């Protein structure tokens, strides 16, 4: 429990769509930093370890920029 919560402003009532977006931004920043540092693209595990997430959570969060948001718009508009 709580692997995600550590990453957001400690508010469990936040919609998951929004917190995934925030997590996605952290992942993107870490990815850029690691690429600069090592001169190659990090693997999913390397990113996950650096951020204290599981690799699966990293994959989930990186979807947030794209489909989950547009999806909510279709479901709830």
């Amino acid at each position, binding site marked *: *429990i*709580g692997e*995600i*919560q550590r990453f*957001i402003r400690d*508010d*469990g*009532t*936040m*919609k*998951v*769509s*929004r*917190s*995934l*977006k925030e997590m996605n931004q952290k992942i993107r920043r870490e990815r850029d930093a690691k690429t600069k540092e090592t001169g190659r693209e990090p693997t999913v595990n390397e990113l996950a370890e650096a951020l204290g997430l*599981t*690799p*699966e*959570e990293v*994959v*989930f969060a990186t*979807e947030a920029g794209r489909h*989950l*948001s547009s*999806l*909510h*718009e279709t*479901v*709830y508009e």
Partner: protein
Amino acid sequence: MTNEMSITFSAVSENEAFARVSVGAFVSQLDPTMDEVTEIKTVISESVTNAIIHGYNENPAGNITISAWLEDGLVTLTITDEGKGMQNVDEAREPLFTSRPELERSGMGFTIMENFMDEVAVHSVPEKGTTIYMKKHVAKSKAHCS
């Protein structure tokens, strides 16, 4: 809206995180809160771990199937294994009961499921397997936030 999916995977602990995230991604269609998704993922962990350890005795040849249905604000989940089943479901559901104390199991898996879900039903047949049915209402506030 209604929607459904099912996932089937080998009974190995590596797949627990896959199962958590897949169900989490599916349920996200209802626009739940973080807490609601975390509760659902926790319940998936508990039931998948039970299937692996108790149902299949960690035999990776076993398969676990999770089905999920969504209808407005309601998630229905089933987790099924074809493992060894239970003789006495009522006893198994008691807080702190574990048949595997040597593994340092907490005996709190079913209690966690009951706490985080609105309904939990267990159907189990010895030597045939176990199905857990669960329901949870999510996204009570229709507030749209993205």
